[in-house]
């Protein structure tokens, strides 16, 4: 099976390499990183913030501090909220494109098992999420150094980066669900709808105070997006995310293996 997955992964990498979508997601994360840096730049000097007008006002809405702790927390929030959209779109594209390009049927009667094709897509999606997160973390560190932020210490940076990667991993788990929706609905549209619906639901549920147990709110709360008043999600909340991800992986494999592929 490992050989089958490696075979399928080779094909998936070739398909992704030529697409614009990876570059679009890279652009989105670049924007997220730069906006975070801009927030820090503004918050370092309130007079400058006021002279920037609306942007300055918005920047001060962020309740963090203009130091390494605040900046890394902001980057984790970018991964939690922006990541759900970006990773979700990546997974939606990996599966949904086979239907919009009408190539899904070419994956069904091959010596390479369908489960291996699905596994290759998921692994590529996971690697994609990881690379984007590494890139954002690197961009954050670079901008932080350029801005000369206060509060650098190995502990602070280690904790901040650890949070960023933990949030990315949880967000990646959740993103698998959009690949499932794109498969079952045989296209992008329903998955994008599900993405917006879950984003909205995560905000509402978190606002009601139950976000620590609602899988789609957990990464954002872990990143600190809920503010100092919100309790961080515990093991149960994190377990719900893992369960949602595992269920989505299982359901996606079963769907590709057993569904009637009549379109």
């Amino acid at each position: 099976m490992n050989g089958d997955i490696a075979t399928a992964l080779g094909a998936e990498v070739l398909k992704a390499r030529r697409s614009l979508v990876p570059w679009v997601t890279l652009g989105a994360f670049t924007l997220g990183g730069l906006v975070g840096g801009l927030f820090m730049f503004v918050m370092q000097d309130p007079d400058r913030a006021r002279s920037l007008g609306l942007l300055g006002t918005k920047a001060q809405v962020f309740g963090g501090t203009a130091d390494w702790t605040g900046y890394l927390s902001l980057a984790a929030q970018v991964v939690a909220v922006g990541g759900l959209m970006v990773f979700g779109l990546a997974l939606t594209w990996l599966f949904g494109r086979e239907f919009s390009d009408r190539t899904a049927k070419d994956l069904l009667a091959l010596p390479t098992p369908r489960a291996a094709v699905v596994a290759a897509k998921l692994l590529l999606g996971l690697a994609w999420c990881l690379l984007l997160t590494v890139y954002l973390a690197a961009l954050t560190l670079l901008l932080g150094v350029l801005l000369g932020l206060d509060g650098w210490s190995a502990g602070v940076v280690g904790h901040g980066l650890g949070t960023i990667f933990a949030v990315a991993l949880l967000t990646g788990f959740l993103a698998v669900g959009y690949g499932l929706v794109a498969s079952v609905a045989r296209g992008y549209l329903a998955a994008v709808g599900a993405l917006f619906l879950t984003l909205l639901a995560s905000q509402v549920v978190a606002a009601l105070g139950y976000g620590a147990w609602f899988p789609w709110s957990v990464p954002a709360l872990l990143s600190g997006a809920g503010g100092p008043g919100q309790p961080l999600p515990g093991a149960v909340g994190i377990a719900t995310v893992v369960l949602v991800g595992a269920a989505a992986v299982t359901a996606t494999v079963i769907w590709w293996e057993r569904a009637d592929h009549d379109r």
Partner: protein
Amino acid sequence: MSPVISLRGVSKTYGDVRALDAVSLDVEPGEIYALLGLNGAGKTTLIRLLLGMVRPTAGQVELAGRPVGGGSADRSVWEHVGYLVETPSAYPELTVRENLEVVRRLRRLPDRRSVEDAIDLFGLRAYAGRRARHLSLGNLQRLGLAKALLHRPSLVVLDEPVNGLDPAGVVEIRNLLLDLARERGMTVLLSSHLLAEVARVASRIGVLHEGRLVDELDATALASRVRTRLEVRTRDDDRAMRILGDAGLHPTRDIEGLVVPDTDAVERPEAVVTALVTGGEPPTHVAVAEDDLETYFLRLVGVLPHDADTTEELSRER
């Protein structure tokens, strides 16, 4: 020798819709078997069942003696099967060569030259570096066929293989399929709604209509199934009809003249000419004509009544 393809009582229903109804057929090694049917007859459903893409509601599908299952079944059977289902598709941002490379990887073919060989075999050399989104429908169809035959399968399943091809392309693909069947013993199952094309390439034809296999015949038997008739033109068709009626024949009107379906008239047209000349209405044109294949097919599937004069019916339809 056991059949390469075997269907036993295969049915497929979607809710209340019966897409296939107890279809049984065998395809022997080296045969070119054509599934013929109108749109919605069940051709594509049958092909998808064969390829394990959909599961039968009832019955059994076997390829090379092994049952076809869904995704988790034994995959080794697919090493020997190539296919093209419905419209040809390709990854639009990949070039022709890259699209074939994706298939080569998924089919676990170690020899990279197979891609270049397929490019040459299907006349795609000039387009090898072109992105699939910029291909014409005909070249996309060639790419689809190249993908289906990249691994030199012993069985190839092709859904409407000449769709979108220009006349030269149709001849080329027809000759290629005939060559592959004759020279390499490849078994071909294809579907088409183009009767004339099917008659040229297939060794056996199965006619699907409303999910049922309503007829199955050898290509050589096709000629015996089509009806013949005598076409007659005169200067006064009313008078000619009376004369032929008096001679015990059953002429009917056509747009261009009269049609005499009687076997006597078809076998002895000179007697008809004699009767008309003797009656004072010599014919200006007499010819024995056959139903074309489309007419045969329409009559078989009930679009035209069995006892109707086909030419007249078609004239009315027009």
